[in-house]
């Protein structure tokens, strides 16, 4: 493997994605508006301690934004007829996945940092472990950007269909990951199912970094997010390889 070429290709793809896809409507609808509406739907008119639920909301915002760019890129390029040309450049499937992932993760990092900083200032929250928070932001964004890439690798050439599939996967995750019902309040099958969601470990880690009660040790949260990231990248690579020419 020629790593300098791989890195150059990934950075160039990320730059191209940021230039083109950060301006696409589905990114804003599914990445920004949707979590905002969910937040209002949950909190408005209810006597809830917003600071208690803030780590969960922050995790939801990060989750939606970082996983909203990836799903549109491959189908959009296949539909526009640019994907075959991209494949003819000195890039591999791994390069494409890393480049797309990087663009998604940076978008998520930017938005979640703004949401996080605003929330912390406006709500007067205390961050008890800034390093843990920073690591979780980086890892969380990488993990969910990789999930977005996995969803986009499924082969379709219609962005709206892939976004629909992506919603089908993402919506159930927010209900089983301790966002609306705190992990410490979960019992029985719900708590067991929560273990299978990568979002659970982000919510739990953010709880820990903001001085809230957490269920797992923070090292478990980090390792789990790392494991899910690797899993999503390898799965995306395998699925995209198989579906490379589908829809061209």
């Amino acid at each position: 493997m020629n790593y300098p070429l791989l890195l150059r290709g990934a950075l160039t793809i990320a730059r191209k994605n940021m230039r083109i896809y950060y301006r696409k409507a589905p990114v804003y609808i599914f990445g920004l508006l949707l979590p905002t509406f969910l937040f209002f739907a949950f909190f408005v008119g209810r006597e809830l301690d917003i600071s208690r639920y803030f780590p969960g909301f922050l995790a939801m915002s990060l989750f939606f934004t970082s996983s909203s760019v990836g799903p549109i890129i491959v189908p959009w390029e296949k539909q526009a007829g640019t994907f075959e040309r991209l494949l003819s450049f000195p890039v591999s499937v791994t390069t494409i996945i890393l480049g797309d992932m990087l663009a998604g993760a940076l978008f998520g990092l930017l938005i979640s940092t703004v949401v996080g900083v605003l929330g912390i200032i406006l709500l007067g929250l205390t961050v008890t472990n800034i390093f843990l928070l920073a690591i979780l932001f980086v890892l969380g964004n990488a993990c969910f950007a990789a999930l977005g890439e996995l969803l986009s690798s499924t082969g379709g050439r219609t962005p709206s269909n892939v976004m629909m599939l992506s919603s089908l996967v993402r919506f159930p995750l927010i209900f089983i990951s301790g966002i609306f019902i705190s992990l410490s309040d979960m019992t029985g099958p719900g708590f067991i199912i929560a273990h299978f969601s990568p979002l659970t470990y982000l919510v739990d880690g953010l709880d820990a970094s903001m001085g809230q009660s957490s269920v797992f040790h923070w090292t478990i949260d980090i390792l789990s997010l790392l494991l899910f990231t690797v899993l999503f990248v390898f799965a995306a690579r395998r699925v995209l390889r198989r579906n490379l020419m589908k829809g061209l």
Partner: protein
Amino acid sequence: MDAIEADGLTKYFGELLAVDHVNFHVKKGEFFGLLGPNGAGKTTTIRMLTGIIEPDAGHVLIEGIDITKRPLEAKMKLGCIPEVGNVYQDLSARENLNLVGRFYGLSRRERESRSEELLTLLGLADRADDYVRTFSKGMRQRVSIACAIVHRPPILLLDEPTEGLDVHSRRVIVDLVKKMNAQGCTIILTTHNIEEANRLCQRVCIINKGSIAAIEAPEKLRRAYESIQTVEVAFDKKVDLCSFTSGHISHIEASGDKWRFHTDNPDEAIRDIVKIGDERGLKIISLATMGPTLEDVFVKLTEGGI
């Protein structure tokens, strides 16, 4: 070392054998044409040559580098216009060139100077900063070819580069490709335009049903099929072709205001045409015998494949 060595290339799509043990070598600096009817396997072959898909069997060497084993290094030597190879419509022409230059590791200065040079050469300088989505098809294809050559590749693969273009854009692209070939660039051209292949290519490879039907210089191919002769005749009035039944005429086709009589014996065919013309009171305005065109050879080789 040849520019491209394709040995035993084979590709299946499910049960369908799209490319069947295709072998050819392209010499450095050669202008090589890939011809074939729709669905013959040309685009699949080009996709294997450019590393877009992997062959099920066989291998491709790009200047000695195996594109399956070292795809990134091999692709660095290629410039390519794929069959579905649009440029980014949400970027300007200049931004597209800049992006491609980054993929090939060009410095900022190189990207800027080469973009300027190519955009001027291709008549796009005044629209360089407009979004490509506002361009005509011909202009988009000119941007596409600029993207394929901005890094000055030693090998250029063009899959139907002039398909559906206006005369001006076609000429601009053909002239540029000819100029690059004259400067030593190896060109592989896939085209339906047989006349274009005849004019440009030093050798053509005719693919039919996934296999190579012939590889030869266009002139040698024509000579190999000398038996396909044509007598082209113009009469002074409308002709009932059914009258022209002769054992020496295989079939007749219209060619503008003339008629082309295909034969393996021009001498006897001309005698028959003159005799039948006399009997029908037709005056011959012009008469010429012609050897087979590359198109005739192509049709002969791919009969039943279209």
